[in-house]
C-alpha cells in the first residue's frame, strides 16, 4: 500500500472542523453539578479566616469545600521526578494541597470550591466566600528569591532553594579552560516565562458510580494513565481498578496538560461526597493563573574558543524559577532536560552546567513545548552567533568548524556527550548547508551590505540556529536513574477483528498530533490493508491497557514502536495459520500486500481470511490458540536525537523599532517520516511558538506578585500576520534503535526558532555595536537600542 511516507489527510479533522469533537466540557452527565474555584487574589497572603455562610445560602449551592474538610485536608498532589542536591540530600518537596487553608503562595492558589446546580450559580456564590487575608511580601524572581531575607514561599525551605544540581565535565578543568582561552563570549540570559495557552481550557469531571463503587474522571489531559496512577497511589489512596480516567478529545496541551492538577482530585473527591457528578472547567483567566507555565530561567553562560575558533569549553549557571509548588515534572525540566543538552551539535570537549531550582510566589513552572531543550539551545546558539560577531568570523562557518562529525549509530558508535547523553545518530553539516542554500546566504549578505550603505530606513538581519534535542523520552532504567518516579515505556494492543478490520489501543494520547492518522498509516502499511480498516483508540484507561502519554515528542518513537511490536506478533501468528491453510512450511511464505503467498507460486491467502480462521478455528493448526490479538510494551534503548538548522531573516523599521520576520527557513532531520504533511504541520506550529517567545510572548509580574498580563488583551500571542510563509525542508538520518527509524517532530520548531530570530535581530542591529537584547524583542526595546 505504501502508506508510510504519504501525506494522508488527517482522518480526525472531520469531527474537529465540523464542531463534533467531544471535549471534556462537552460531556453532560445526569445529575451533574458545577464547580467554581475561589482563588487567591494575592501572591502571598495568610488566611486568617474563611466564611462561607453567605455563599452557602445562595440559590443552587450544593456544597462548599475548603481545605480543612475531611477528605481534602492534608491531601496534596505529588511531584513525579526527584532531583537531589549536590550533597546528595533529597530535593525540598513541600506539600501542594488540594485547597490551601493556611496561606496562599501564588495568585490563583485555590482556597475553596463552590459546587452548585449550575456554573452561573456556583460563580455567583463563589464571589460571596469571605476570606480574611493578611497580605505578605512576595518574591517572583528566582535570583531575588535566593537572597538572604527574601520572603519564603515555604517556611521550611531556606533561601527558597528546592535543589542545587550540577552535571558535566570536571568543574576545575572547565574553569581553567575558560580562564586560559583565546576568546570567551559571555552573555546573561533571561529566558522569560511563557503561558502555554492551549485553546481548550483545562476541564475535569468527577463521577462516582455507587452501583459499582467506581470513579470515572474525565479530564483534559495528555496522559490519562499517569493521572490515574498518581490519583490512586499518591493522592487519594483509592484502588486503581476502581478508577477509570478518560482523556477525550483534547484541544492542545503543549506540555501544560501532562501534569496531575489539584482540580482533578477535587472533583473526584467531591463526586463521591455528593454522589453526583462534578464538573469544573477553567475560565481563561484561570488558565493564565493555574496552568503550569514554561521556561523562566536566568542564566549566565560562557563559551570559550581557541585561536582557530574551536570551542574549548562551555559553562553555565542557571536560576530556574519553579513557582510556588513542584509540578509533576518540574524538577526534571531545568536539569535532565536542559543540562543534558548543553553539548549542542558541537565537539566542545568540556561542558559544565550548574542549576539552582528556586521557589517563588508564582504559578508553578513545568514542561512547555521543548521543556528545557529550548532554553539550552537558546544559550548555545546565542553564544555562538555572538562569538562569531566578536571574533569577526562568519556564524555559519564557525558552526561548520565545530560540528560533531557524522555518525550513524550502527557502524559508527553514538556520540558520547560531556553531559550524560549518547546521541543516537547524526549528520549535522547537511542541514545547515541546505538551509544556507535555501536562504541564498551570499546574496542576502550582499543585499544587507547595500541596505546598510544606502541607509533607506530598513535594517536587515540574518540569524542562525543549529539545534539538537532529546526526544522519545525514553529508557525507563535511564530516566529512573535520573530521578523519574515512573517508567517511560509505552504499550500497544493490536486487535485484528474476525473480518480483518483492526483496532489499535495505544497508550499515547493525541491532542493535536494526528495519531489517528499516522498510527493507522503504520498499521495499514504493515498489514497491507486499507487505511479505513484501522481504528486507533486512545485516552481511556478502561480500554487501553496502560500508557505513559504524549509529550517529549515520544508518541511515534515509543508508542509507534510498541504498535510495530504487536504488528510483528500478529504477522508471526498469521503466518502459522496461513501455512496450515496453504499446507506449506512457514518458511515458504512471504507476507506482502495484505496476503501470505507461497514463494514462487500463485498460491496465497488474504489477511482477512487468516483473521477469520483465527476466530472460526475449525480447520486450524494444532496447539495454536484462537484469536489474533496482541499486546506489547516497548521500552526504548535510548532517547532519539532530532536536529536541524533554522535561519531567520528579519527587517527592522528604524523609525519604530518594529521587527518584521521576512523569511524563516527550517531544515529539520526528524528521522524517517510517516506523514510529511503532519510533520510539516508540527514544525509550523512549533515555529510559531518559538517565534512567539522571541518577539512577543512573556508574563509580566509586578512586585507584589500580580500577573499583569493575564488576558489576551495584554499577553501577546503570535498571530498569522506576524509570521511569514515558512520554508521547510528535511534531511533524513534514521534513528538506529527503533523499528520505524523515527525521531519525533513535535518540539523541533519550538526549539530551533527562538535563537534564530533573536540572532537575526542582533545581526540587523550589529551596526549599533550591541551584543545582547532580552526577549521578547519588542518594538520598544529595539527602538530604545537604536536611539541609544
Amino acid at each position, binding site marked *: 500500500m505504501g502508506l508510510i511516507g504519504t501525506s494522508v489527510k488527517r482522518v480526525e479533522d472531520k469531527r474537529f472542523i465540523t464542531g463534533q469533537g467531544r471535549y471534556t466540557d462537552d460531556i453532560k452527565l445526569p445529575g451533574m453539578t458545577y464547580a467554581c474555584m475561589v482563588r487567591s487574589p494575592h501572591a502571598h497572603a495568610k488566611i486568617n479566616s474563611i466564611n462561607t455562610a453567605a455563599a452557602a445560602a445562595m440559590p443552587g449551592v450544593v456544597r462548599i469545600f475548603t481545605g480543612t474538610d475531611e477528605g481534602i485536608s492534608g491531601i496534596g498532589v505529588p511531584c513525579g521526578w526527584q532531583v537531589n542536591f549536590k550533597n546528595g540530600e533529597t530535593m525540598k518537596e513541600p506539600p501542594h494541597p488540594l485547597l490551601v487553608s493556611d496561606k496562599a503562595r501564588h495568585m490563583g492558589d485555590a482556597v475553596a470550591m463552590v459546587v452548585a446546580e449550575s456554573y452561573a450559580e456556583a460563580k*455567583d456564590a463563589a*464571589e460571596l466566600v469571605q476570606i480574611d487575608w493578611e497580605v505578605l511580601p512576595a518574591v517572583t524572581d528566582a535570583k531575588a528569591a535566593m537572597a538572604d531575607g527574601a520572603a519564603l514561599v515555604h517556611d521550611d525551605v531556606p533561601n527558597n532553594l528546592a535543589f542545587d544540581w550540577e552535571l558535566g565535565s570536571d568543574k576545575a578543568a572547565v574553569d581553567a579552560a575558560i580562564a586560559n582561552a583565546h576568546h570567551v563570549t559571555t552573555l546573561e540570559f533571561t529566558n522569560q516565562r511563557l503561558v502555554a495557552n492551549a485553546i481548550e481550557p483545562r476541564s475535569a469531571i468527577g463521577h462516582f458510580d455507587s452501583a459499582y463503587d467506581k470513579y470515572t474522571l474525565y479530564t483534559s489531559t495528555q496522559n490519562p494513565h499517569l493521572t490515574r496512577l498518581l490519583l490512586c497511589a499518591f493522592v487519594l489512596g483509592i484502588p486503581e481498578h476502581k478508577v477509570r480516567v478518560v482523556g477525550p478529545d483534547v484541544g492542545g496541551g503543549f506540555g501544560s496538560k501532562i501534569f496531575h492538577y489539584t482540580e482533578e482530585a477535587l472533583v473526584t473527591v467531591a463526586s463521591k461526597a455528593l454522589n453526583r457528578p462534578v464538573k469544573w472547567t477553567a475560565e481563561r483567566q484561570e488558565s493564565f493563573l493555574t496552568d503550569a507555565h514554561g521556561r523562566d530561567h536566568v542564566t549566565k553562560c560562557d563559551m570559550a574558543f581557541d585561536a582557530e575558533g574551536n570551542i574549548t569549553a562551555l559553562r553555565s549557571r542557571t536560576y530556574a524559577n519553579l513557582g510556588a509548588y513542584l509540578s509533576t515534572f518540574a524538577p526534571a525540566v531545568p536539569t535532565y532536560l536542559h543540562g543534558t543538552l548543553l553539548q549542542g551539535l558541537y565537539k566542545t570537549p568540556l561542558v559544565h552546567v550548574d542549576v539552582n531550582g528556586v521557589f517563588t510566589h508564582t504559578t508553578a513552572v513545568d514542561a512547555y513545548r521543548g521543556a528545557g531543550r529550548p532554553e539550552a539551545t537558546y544559550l548555545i546558539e546565542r553564544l555562538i552567533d555572538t562569538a562569531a560577531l566578536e571574533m569577526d568570523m562568519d556564524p555559519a562557518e564557525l558552526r561548520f568548524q565545530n560540528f560533531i562529525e557524522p555518525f550513524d549509530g550502527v557502524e559508527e558508535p553514538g556520540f558520547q556527550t560531556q553531559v550524560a547523553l549518547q546521541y543516537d545518530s547524526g549528520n549535522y553539516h547537511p542541514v545547515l548547508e541546505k538551509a544556507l542554500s535555501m536562504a541564498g546566504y551570499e546574496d542576502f549578505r550582499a543585499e544587507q551590505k547595500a541596505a546598510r550603505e544606502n541607509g533607506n530606513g530598513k535594517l536587515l538581519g540574518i540569524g542562525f540556529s543549529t539545534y539538537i534535542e532529546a526526544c522519545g523520552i525514553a529508557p525507563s532504567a535511564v530516566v529512573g536513574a535520573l530521578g523519574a518516579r515512573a517508567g517511560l515505556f509505552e504499550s500497544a494492543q493490536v486487535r485484528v477483528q474476525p473480518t480483518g478490520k483492526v483496532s489499535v489501543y495505544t497508550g499515547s494520547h493525541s491532542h493535536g498530533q494526528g495519531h489517528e492518522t499516522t498510527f493507522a498509516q503504520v498499521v495499514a502499511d504493515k498489514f497491507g490493508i486499507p487505511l479505513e480498516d484501522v481504528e486507533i483508540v486512545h485516552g481511556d484507561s478502561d480500554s487501553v491497557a496502560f500508557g505513559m502519554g504524549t509529550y517529549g515528542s515520544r508518541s511515534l518513537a515509543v508508542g509507534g514502536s510498541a504498535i510495530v511490536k504487536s504488528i510483528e506478533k500478529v504477522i508471526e501468528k498469521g503466518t502459522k495459520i496461513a501455512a496450515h491453510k496453504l499446507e506449506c512450511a512457514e518458511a515458504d511464505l512471504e507476507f506482502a500486500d495484505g496476503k501470505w503467498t507461497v514463494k514462487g507460486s500463485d498460491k496465497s491467502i488474504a489477511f482477512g481470511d487468516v483473521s477469520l480462521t483465527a476466530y472460526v478455528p475449525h480447520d486450524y493448526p494444532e496447539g495454536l490458540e484462537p484469536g489474533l490479538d496482541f499486546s506489547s510494551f516497548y521500552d526504548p534503548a535510548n532517547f532519539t536525537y532530532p536536529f536541524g538548522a533554522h535561519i531567520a531573516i528579519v527587517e527592522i523599521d528604524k523609525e519604530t523599532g518594529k521587527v518584521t520576520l521576512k523569511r524563516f527557513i527550517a531544515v529539520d532531520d526528524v528521522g524517517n517520516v510517516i506523514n510529511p504533511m503532519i510533520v510539516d504541520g508540527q514544525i509550523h506550529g512549533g515555529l510559531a511558538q518559538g517565534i512567539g517567545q522571541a518577539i512577543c510572548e512573556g508574563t509580566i509580574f509586578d512586585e507584589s506578585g500580580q500577573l499583569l498580563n493575564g488576558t*489576551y488583551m495584554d499577553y501577546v500571542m503570535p498571530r498569522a500576520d506576524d509570521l511569514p510563509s515558512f520554508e521547510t525542508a528535511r534531511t533524513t538520518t534514521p534513528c538506529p534503535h527503533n523499528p520505524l527509524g523515527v525521531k519525533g517532530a513535535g518540539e523541533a520548531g519550538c526549539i530551533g526558532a527562538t535563537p534564530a530570530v533573536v540572532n537575526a535581530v542582533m545581526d540587523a542591529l550589529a551596526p549599533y555595536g550591541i551584543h545582547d537584547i532580552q526577549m521578547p524583542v519588542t518594538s520598544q526595546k529595539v527602538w530604545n537600542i537604536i536611539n541609544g
Partner: protein
Amino acid sequence: MIPNKFSYHRPNDVNEAIQMLQTHGDDCKLLAGGHSLLPVLRNRLNDPEHIIDISGLSELQGIKDNEKSVTIGAGTTHGEIARSTILQQHAPMYAIAAAKIGDIQVRNFGTIGGSIAHADPAADWPGVLLASNASIVIKNSGGTREVDVDQFFMGLFMTAVQDGEIITAIRVPKTAFNRNSTYVKFPQPASRFAIVGCAAAVAKEGGQVTEARVAFNGVSSKPYRDTGIENGLKGQALSADSIAAATANIADGVSVMSDHFASEKYRRHLAGVYARRALGTL
C-alpha cells in the same frame, strides 16, 4: 466568564429604548454589537440589572449619501463601513480605519455608535471623527440634538451623551479635506487597539494646503486634534520638509499615556512617525 444576572429588553424602536433608559435609570446598559459591553460584563467589571438590546433597530442602520453630508447610522457595523463605496469616496479614512479594527468577526458585529459611546481612548474611531469634523446625532425624549465632535469626547470613557440619550448617527460633512483623508495606526500587539492612531485629512488648492485636520487616538487618555500640525501645514505645499516642520513639536502639551508596551517617550515619538506617514500619503 459569565456575567451577573440581568434582565434583557428588546425595544421596537429608538423611542421605546429611550423610555426604557428613563425607567431603569443608572441600572441599565445599551447593547449594540456587544464588543465593548460584553467583555466588561463577562469580567464582571460592571453588573447592570437591565440590558436594552438596540442591535436590531432599523432606524440606526445604514450609510446615507445626503447633499452635504454622509450619515452613518449608529448601529452600522465596522464591516459595513469598511466596504462602503460612499465613504470610500467621500471620507476614505472611515473605510480605512474600519478595516483595521479587530478581525472579521469583530468588524461584522461591532458598531461605530457602540464604540464611540464606550469612548475607549485607544479605539480607532475617535481620531477619525475628530479629523473629519463629524457631528454626533443624539436622541432623547425631547427630540434630537447634534453635538460637534470637538465637544463629544470628554475623557477616558466619557462622552457628551447624557442619561436617557441614545446616539443615532454620525454625520460626516462632504468636504475637500474628507475626500483626501487616511488613518494609520501602530497597534498594541495583543489587543490590536491603537498605541498610536492618526487620522489626517487635507484639502489642497493649487498645490497648497487650505485646510488640514490631524487627530490622534491612543496617545492620550482623551483623543485630540493636533492644531499645531494643522496650522503648521496651512498655506504650505505638502512635502517631506513641510510635514517634518509641522510635526516637529509633536504632542506638545499633551499628557501622553505610558504602559509596558510604550513609554511616554516612545509613544510621543510614534505619534510623530505616524503623523508623518499619514500626511505623506495625502
